[in-house]
């Protein structure tokens, strides 16, 4: 890790801070402009529902978001919009918090010498380091909001599989009722095999996030999603479809169907069309149903996980502090680059330490343990001459 990297992250940090300040002002302004017509805020401390919209690239997440935002405005629901996709070029809807205001994706790519994927991932990592502030912002306005809509990067794996995605999801889930919406590209899923692999993926997300999951079958204006509902409700029908389609290992597909059949029991699904706006009412009804589910089933478990995480965090902080003290002692008053750069915090914490230890070990071997080396040589010879 070079010094340059660390410097940049510090700059980023600073700009983040100022931008958040700006954001606060902006969002306050917006709230006044946008919602003059809504009824006076309800007195109880009803928390908004966080709707995290996840989907494969091209499934129409952003268009769906646009539609949802528009629907919120029409029906007087008070929505708050977050965009987490740093690479999006034009956003059709106005986002209250936009990752692009904080992190410049193009600059990250240039500065770190990364490709498009790495750039998005790093931008998200940088943003995740400040995510508590975002949650704070939402929390402040919690009493006057109904829904918080979160758009995620087009590269689904960056959000669902990365550490920063997990941090963001958990930060929300531990404070607010959170629902994950998996957007399915309905026309592309008409083939049973594609459908199956999509559902398996959704199942993976359910296990990764451990939050209520709802499927939104998008693009129903092109292809109605009835076929999917039928497959999900009737195990036999899906089985038939799979067998008609391919001569794939019948046993495996049967087992998979069984698994998926159980999976569907835990799912809500809704057909929507981002283009025509069909199914919007149903969408929000389903979100409300998920909220109830969250309150009943997930709350307690999440609290436990939160405690666990806090303990780990505490541990990490102590370790970092110790490291910092050590560094200060070592540097003896000279200027030092902070040891705990934000980037490292987000990624595997132990990685670097482990690597260091390894390297030390290897050096030891080289200098002291000549016997070992000989043995290794013998092994290699065996490989070659066998």
């Amino acid at each position, binding site marked *: 890790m070079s010094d340059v990297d660390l410097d940049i992250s510090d700059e980023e940090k600073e700009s983040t801070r100022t931008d958040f300040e700006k954001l606060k002002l902006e969002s306050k302004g917006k709230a006044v402009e946008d919602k003059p017509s809504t009824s006076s805020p309800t007195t109880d401390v009803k928390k908004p529902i966080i709707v995290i919209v996840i989907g494969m690239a091209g499934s129409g997440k952003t268009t769906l978001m646009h539609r949802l935002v528009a629907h919120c405005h029409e029906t007087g629901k008070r929505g708050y919009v977050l965009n987490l996709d740093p690479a999006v070029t034009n956003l059709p809807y106005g986002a209250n918090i936009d990752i692009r205001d904080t992190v410049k994706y193009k600059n990250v790519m240039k500065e770190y010498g990364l490709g498009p994927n790495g750039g998005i991932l790093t931008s998200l990592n940088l943003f995740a380091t400040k995510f508590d502030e975002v949650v704070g912002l939402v929390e402040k306005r919690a009493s006057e909001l109904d829904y918080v809509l979160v758009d995620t990067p087009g590269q689904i794996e960056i959000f669902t599989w990365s550490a920063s995605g997990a941090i963001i999801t958990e930060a929300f889930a531990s404070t607010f009722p959170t629902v994950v919406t998996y957007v399915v590209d309905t026309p592309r899923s008409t083939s049973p095999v594609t459908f199956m692999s999509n559902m398996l993926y959704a199942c993976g997300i359910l296990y990764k996030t451990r939050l209520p999951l709802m499927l939104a079958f998008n693009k129903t204006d092109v292809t109605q999603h009835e076929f999917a509902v039928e497959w999900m409700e009737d195990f036999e029908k899906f089985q038939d479809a799979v067998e008609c389609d391919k001569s794939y290992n019948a046993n495996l597909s049967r087992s998979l169907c069984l698994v998926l059949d159980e999976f569907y029991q835990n799912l809500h699904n809704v057909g929507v069309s981002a283009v025509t706006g069909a199914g919007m009412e149903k969408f929000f009804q389903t979100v409300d149903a998920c909220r109830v589910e969250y309150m009943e089933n997930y709350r307690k478990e999440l609290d436990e996980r939160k405690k666990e995480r806090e303990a780990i965090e505490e541990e990490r902080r102590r370790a970092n502090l110790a490291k910092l003290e050590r560094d200060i002692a070592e540097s003896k008053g000279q200027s030092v680059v902070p040891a705990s750069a934000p980037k490292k915090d987000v990624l595997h914490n132990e990685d670097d330490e482990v690597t260091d230890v*390894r390297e030390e070990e290897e050096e030891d071997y080289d200098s002291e343990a000549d016997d070992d080396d000989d043995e290794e040589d013998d092994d290699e010879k065996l490989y070659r001459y066998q």
Partner: protein
Amino acid sequence: MPRYAQLIIGPAGSGKSTYCNNLYQHCQSVGRVIHIVNLDPAAEHFEYPVALDIRELISLDDVMDELKLGPNGGLVYCMEYLEDNLDDWLSEQLEDYIDDDYLVFDCPGQIELYSHIPVLRTFVDHLKKWDFAVCAVYMLDSQFASDVTKYISGCMASLSAMVQLEIPHVNILTKMDLLPNKSKVDKFLDPDARLLLGDLNDQMAPRFQKLNKALAELVDDYSMVSFLPLDIRDEESIQFVLSHIDNAIQFGEDAEVKVKDYDADMGDPEDAENFDVGNIDDD
């Protein structure tokens, strides 16, 4: 005789290119010839020598500039362009590789390619048509083996690619060298249904019990979703993974049989070498 191919797939950042590089170095040190093909139009620098590069056909930057597409749309366009040019461009390029050559395809990391878009599927079908024995090698970051729910989600992703591609499939847990505690991973390498179920029931809300059971049984019944650990610092670990893949595509098995014939007749030295390679793999 067939040609052999590994298709290296897996989510972005799972270590595909690193694996290719290490595999190449390993093969060089054991005196085996492999050719690495880059299929990622967004890749920029390689540590291994690239035998064949999709960027000779199409470059992501050009696509993004000219068609005003974002990174994702651009990539999908590139891959679909490749699909259209399989018969012209790729088959021509692959003609250089004859019997028994061993190719490794380094694929882009976009998940969509393995589930939504049939590009990779078409690609595999073409390879099969050209008499390639293909094996999909699914890379997964070892952080997925850190707890049971992540493990299940990793399995699901791998299964989803498996269902789509329908070729021999080897799952690999990469970055094992970065794990602080390796013993924790052991139970996921050879999962036991009951243990897995117990863990799952602990972690998930009670109403998921049936689903947990179905999943645990699935993992137990189909050893296909088991994982091989890969520590790229360890030559033996690479050898272990490679021998599994070779086994899946039956690399070296033909060679063995033929060598015996030739040995009796004329003792072809070239094939005798292959024979040796096959033997090492079996170790």
